[in-house]
């Protein structure tokens, strides 16, 4: 029993991190109708910015965090949008997929080349003291991660659906031509989405790196799982990312424990295929509507 509880709680803790990254996917989808395959690297980079701040610029941890957040927003939000998304978006989804993949390699290799290939320790932002619940152990950090993921989902959903700017962002994504003739500043809307995404990625980065350790290759698996989480949960709903993330986190641990560790990596994938075949719009997603 305590093992089961432990597995569930650990799963939720990891799942909330997947969710944080997955939210970025759904956000970008809802506001730019594209997919950022470098998302995993977007989560990897801010941690290194913190390390640069601390180890080379001599900043204390919290200052370094703020510094990294700002630099991430500029670099992974503004510069990314200007230099990669804007020129390539018009030539279609697949080109952008490839471009973001290339960007992923670019970021990964740059970090490796300029900071080093080895994993680096990263200080926890919140106390890691264990909290015992019925024989299972979680840390305060885990609980904070979960709370943050939840909070962001609620805030972003409200922002996108309840504010005019949010709706303009959606319009700009779903039908940029129409948005433009109605006077919506399409480019700016897309920029907002990318800025928010960068900020989210940075937050996710600060929260997980103490556990995952800072390493140039961290993004590979994380980006993949987060994307799967987004699809499983439902790509066109922010809350889908949360559900998908938590689900994968928990199921992953359950499979590893009770079914098979060797095929553990297959589980999210099987889940993905299953969901897509049964409910293509994802668990929380809504169908895209009328085709004819």
């Amino acid at each position: 029993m305590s093992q089961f509880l432990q597995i569930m709680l650990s799963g939720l803790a990891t799942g909330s991190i997947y969710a944080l990254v997955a939210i970025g996917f759904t956000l970008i989808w809802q506001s730019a109708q594209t997919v950022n395959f470098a998302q995993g690297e977007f989560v990897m980079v801010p941690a290194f910015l913190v390390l640069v701040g601390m180890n080379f610029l001599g900043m204390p941890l919290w200052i370094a965090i703020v510094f990294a957040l700002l630099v991430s927003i500029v670099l992974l939000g503004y510069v990314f949008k200007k230099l990669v998304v804007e020129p390539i978006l018009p030539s279609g989804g697949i080109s952008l997929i490839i471009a973001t993949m290339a960007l992923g390699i670019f970021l990964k290799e740059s970090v490796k080349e300029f900071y080093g290939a080895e994993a680096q320790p990263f200080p926890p932002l919140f106390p890691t003291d264990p909290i015992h619940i019925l024989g299972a152990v979680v840390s305060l950090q885990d609980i904070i991660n979960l709370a943050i993921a939840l909070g962001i989902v609620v805030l972003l959903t409200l922002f996108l659906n309840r504010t005019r700017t949010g709706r303009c962002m959606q319009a700009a994504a779903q039908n940029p031509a129409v948005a433009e003739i109605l006077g919506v500043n399409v480019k700016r809307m897309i920029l907002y989405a990318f800025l928010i995404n960068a900020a989210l990625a940075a937050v996710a980065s600060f929260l997980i790196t103490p556990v995952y350790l800072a390493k140039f290759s961290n993004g590979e698996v994380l980006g993949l799982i987060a994307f799967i989480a987004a699809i499983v949960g439902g790509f066109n709903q922010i809350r889908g990312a949360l559900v998908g993330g938590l689900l994968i986190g928990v199921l992953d641990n359950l499979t590893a424990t009770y079914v098979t560790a060797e095929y553990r990596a297959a589980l999210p994938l099987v889940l993905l295929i299953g969901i897509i075949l049964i409910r293509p719009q994802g668990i929380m997603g809504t169908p895209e509507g009328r085709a004819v």
Partner: protein
Amino acid sequence: AVRIGVVAELSGAGAPSGTNWRDGARLAVEEINAEGGILGRMVEITEYDTQTDPQVSRALVQKAIDEGAFAIWGTIYSGSTIVNMLVAMQNGVPQFVGSEAPPIVQQGNPYIFRTSMGAQKGVPGLTPYFTDTLGVEKVGVAWTNNEFGKGGHDVFIQEMENVGIEVVADISSEQGQADFASDVSQLRDSGAEAIFVYMNQEESARFLIEARKQGISVPLVGEVTLNDQKVIELAGDAANGAIAHVGLTTAAPEIAAFGEKFNERYGREPIQDAIKGYIAAWATKYVTEMVGEFDQEAFVETMHGLCLPADQYPNILLDICWDETGEVSRPSFMVEVQDGSPVVIERLPAN
């Protein structure tokens, strides 16, 4: 000048190992060249990045040979070495590798030489520790499911069977896995009295962190990596108490000087792969000069059954012997992490 091909995992998952190997080799080459090179010829290394992709590594070994490499240094990941060692053999080029998987020396390839003990030798070195020192009856195993991990795992299971210790939990994980909650909790509930951890460095660190979090109190025992400098750096306090059987560690007095040199040159602690790279380079020099000319056939012939004592060949760091298969014999160490640094608790003779 004499050309050497450094074929290593400079990018991809193996980058930490590969870059350390390369840096260790570079350091050695700088020293060798400062001493006048090998047989008076400067050593010139060309680096080839395998991207941790075995097929690329195979192509690159071919390329290095096409470009006239006298010897190949690398690769480190067993998965790559198994693939590319054939090419070096077909071309008759000696190759030093940093890999531990048992099959590498079991295929009758006369050109391959390890720089560290294979798992089939290293892991049995630990068995007495389980039977005598710990005196346990039930153990758990946590290992990474790649060529390296599988090699060690298979040997360990066999060993435990031989000495009659029951393996109550046998848990594999993926290379690059970040979340060890499930692995640790299964081990915790398995009733194991000690846990054998056989993973690459980062995985080891993450495992230790999670084990600490879930309050595992039984001994965690590893081989090769568990007490590596890098693991300690990453796992912090969580590494304290971990015990490992290692062939190479800067905690050993013979190797401490190398650690300082490396640190001075690169500004960081070396991991064991750096030591391996360094040894590969110096062995190439020593043996070539022993042969007296750049003759690859004579080189491998000399290597087989050769012993280099450290007092005559100081930069080989520890007395070392290669047998007919290219496997090494060398003294090794039991190391425990105490207060954040590895401490040698026992010195095992070469076997």
